[in-house]
């Protein structure tokens, strides 16, 4: 297997052009900045030029002096000051504007990632620059065994298949996997007619009893001393938030030691895209169609991870495949927590077929859902409370996200405003739980002040405290 490398990632929507990254780079490198932030297409938008440390680097191939080499261990394209003759041919090989001459002294400069701890990333106050650990993940997990057969029958671009494969790679063979009815078994993980699609023990619980069956398995294995088995589910949202809710809630309340991964594609996608309790307001589904009288779902989705927080589950986190490093981090913690109590990981999973998203835009949809706060990424433990794992500050408008999703195509301005208000409200609530002072969203600010204190008494100020139910 080839080796992959970590990189510096740029999230354009978050960048406010403050220039701290360039200052930090200049300071560390004692010269011109290797990263450059330039004005973007509209006022307040910014773009970035920085070495991508290409796997197939043209700068290296055009260098006549052997001064540039792709470092097999770090992935960085190393530049040798001794060998370089500053001929600038390398600049012709770079389509990113990432290798250039220092205006002072004229020597070639390029990013060396500061040896894995880039100054620009540390200096970035907006979260626009990130140290992306995807390469490390690939190296760590790429060699691990894929627990599913190749050629599962998911739709093209299926995000759930991605989740399944990644999660099970990490979990490994010492596990028991429940995949309740839905796309996950539907695509062949439990197999057909006596053949299996999975290398670990796998079963098809009822849509309604996943958490319970798992609880029974765990209890027995714990009783006979086989405590190291990961007992887990890859379950859809329908079986989790609707008809299987009792089982999830019961297992969480009892602190059953299981790992429950909810792959949330916001409805019953396998049976033909019907609405579930996790389907967001306004969505077109086959049971919330769009016509003259009805324009998609008229209720908001229930927030299952928050419900799990209210259960004081041992671990609760939300995750998105647009942020794999984080997903893997959370998976690590979720697995660990599943040996102590109920561990709940909620992964958002756009469905190209059911949501009407082009299959090559699924990860983009994941990313925009997070950038718009439609999906918030956070984690919770009873000990540490709730914390955001990605800042919800500086979101893009929800409408930008909604526009990328076919199931929202019909939404009118009022509906979009409803969604935006709901997103703002959820973020405000989460911020309170996270102990961050929330600026009241417009929707709340307009409402009369609500207070539980007697009339006349001042409303108690928001407390800077972490939520510990």
């Amino acid at each position, binding site marked *: 297997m080839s080796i992959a490398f970590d990189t510096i990632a740029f999230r354009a929507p978050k960048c406010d052009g403050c220039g701290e990254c360039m200052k930090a780079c200049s300071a560390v490198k004692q010269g011109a900045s290797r990263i450059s932030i330039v004005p973007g297409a509209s006022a307040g938008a910014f773009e970035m030029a920085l070495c991508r440390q290409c796997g197939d680097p043209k700068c290296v191939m055009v260098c006549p002096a052997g001064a540039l080499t792709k470092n097999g261990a770090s992935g960085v394209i190393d530049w040798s000051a001794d060998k370089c003759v500053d001929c600038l041919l390398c600049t012709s090989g770079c389509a990113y*504007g990432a290798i250039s001459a220092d205006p002072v002294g004229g020597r070639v400069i390029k990013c060396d990632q500061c040896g894995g701890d880039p100054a620009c990333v540390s200096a970035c106050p907006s979260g626009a620059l990130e140290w992306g650990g995807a390469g490390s993940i690939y190296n760590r997990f790429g060699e691990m065994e894929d627990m599913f057969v190749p050629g599962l029958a998911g739709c093209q671009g299926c995000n759930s298949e991605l989740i399944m494969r990644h999660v099970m790679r990490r979990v490994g063979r010492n596990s028991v996997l429940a995949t309740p009815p839905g796309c996950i078994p539907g695509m062949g993980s439990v197999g057909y007619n006596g053949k299996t699609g999975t290398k670990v023990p796998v079963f098809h619980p009822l849509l309604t009893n996943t958490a319970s069956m798992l609880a029974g398995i765990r209890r027995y294995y714990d009783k006979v001393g086989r405590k190291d088995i990961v007992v887990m589910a890859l379950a859809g949202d329908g079986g989790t938030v609707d008809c299987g809710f009792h089982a999830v809630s019961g297992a969480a309340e009892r602190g059953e030691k299981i790992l429950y991964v909810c792959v949330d594609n916001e409805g019953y996608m396998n049976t033909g895209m019907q609405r579930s309790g996790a389907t967001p307001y306004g969505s077109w589904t086959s049971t919330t169609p769009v016509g003259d009288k009805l324009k998609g779902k008229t209720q908001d989705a229930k927030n299952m991870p928050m419900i799990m927080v209210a259960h004081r589950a041992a671990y609760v986190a939300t995750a998105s495949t647009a942020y794999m490093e984080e997903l893997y981090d959370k998976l690590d913690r979720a697995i660990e927590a599943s040996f102590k109590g109920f561990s709940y990981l909620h992964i958002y999973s756009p469905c190209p077929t059911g949501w009407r998203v082009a299959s090559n835009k699924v990860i983009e949809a994941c990313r925009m859902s997070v950038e718009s706060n439609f999906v918030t990424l956070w984690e919770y433990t009873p000990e540490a409370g709730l914390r955001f794992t990605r800042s919800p500050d500086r979101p893009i408008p929800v409408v930008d996200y909604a526009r990328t999703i076919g199931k929202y195509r019909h939404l009118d301005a009022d509906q979009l405003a409803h969604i935006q208000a709901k997103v703002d409200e959820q973020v405000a609530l989460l911020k309170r739980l996270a102990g961050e002072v929330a600026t009241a969203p417009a929707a709340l600010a307009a409402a009369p002040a609500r207070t539980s204190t007697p009339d006349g008494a001042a409303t108690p100020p928001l407390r800077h405290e972490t939520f510990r139910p």
Partner: protein
Amino acid sequence: MPEAKYLLVGSSHAGLEALRAIRRLDADGSMAMLTKDSQLPYSPTVLPYVMSGRSKPDAVILRDRAFFDETGCVYAPGQAAQSLDTKARLVTLADGVQWRYERLLIATGAAPAIPPIPGLQSVPFHVLRTLDDAVNLRTRMGLARRAVVLGAGLVGLHAAETLAEAGLAVSVIEMKNQVLPGYIDAKASERIEAAFASHGIKLLLGRTATQVAALDGGVSVTTDDGRAIEGDMLLVATGVKSCTEWLAGSGVEIDRGVLVDDRMRTSAADVWAAGDVAQGLDFASGERQVLGIIPTAVEQGRIAGFDMAGDAKQKPWAGGLPVNTYRFFGRPAVSVGQAAAEGDGFEVVEQEQPRKYRRIVLADNRLVGIITVDDPFDAGIMGELIRRRVDLGAMKDAFLADPTQVGRRLMSEMWR
């Protein structure tokens, strides 16, 4: 008889890139790289720096022995190919050894073209194309006080700079009225000329050497205006020609170089060519030309390599784009595309400032060429804008004001 599935002749940019491309598709097909050079691979472009002493001859190698071991490619230095039999699939070397190939890459590059100046062949003169040339020049220049350079192209100017920096009195004779003819425009040329002049170099532009004669261990070059320019050493840098002699009689079609199609295939089956030896598509004109630069050698080498390894999915090549970067006396000049173009259909914007010069050529609101002096830019990005024929639309003014910023923005958006 030695044989290889992939036989690469020539060990410079084109050959090395082909090797890499082949190995990406075929991890262990047998491969050999033959080269006339006795050293490990190096680039001709680095030679001026070897000549100046900035680069040590043993520090300029592009690939070490271990690389060839790792890639499973037999590296055979000191092996000059002398003839090719495409029917028998045999390459015959100067010493008579024959290599059998399944697929052959011709990457023998170019060699100095020696102009037919009366007397030239009877005097000692230098060229600069091989490491040996550079080392010889360096030795010679340590003993000389005056040097004459024929040709104010890239090689001539580089060498002239080096000679001047080493303290020699240097005269450069150039047929055309400007330096770097064909690459840069007259105004850019003026600035470079000024740099040379300020370092005491005599540039004799628009002059033709008519006669060369030996003189006290040195030379005397007579120009068309009757002047005699004397030197202790003479460097001929009047251009290059593709190394195709060894292909004579092979049936491989040759014009100024080996004619190749958009996958670098020659007219002979299972024979490819790339780099300075090849005459392939030119992006701007749509005709086949020898571009003689590294970026083109690399691109062609890659396409050839992938095609040799059987990659059926390659997009047809859009053609080579001139890209040149220069730095004379610390002053950078960069040109991409039809930087010197003028006339109908071209919109030329020249920005002349005391400390920098920029010339942007647009056609149909799209960038087709750009050159700057003392204002380096992202040559790779400009190349992309030209190749992709990006319509600058409403961004044109912003682009003209700051091509680097707008170029970076466009690329950042594009690659996201």
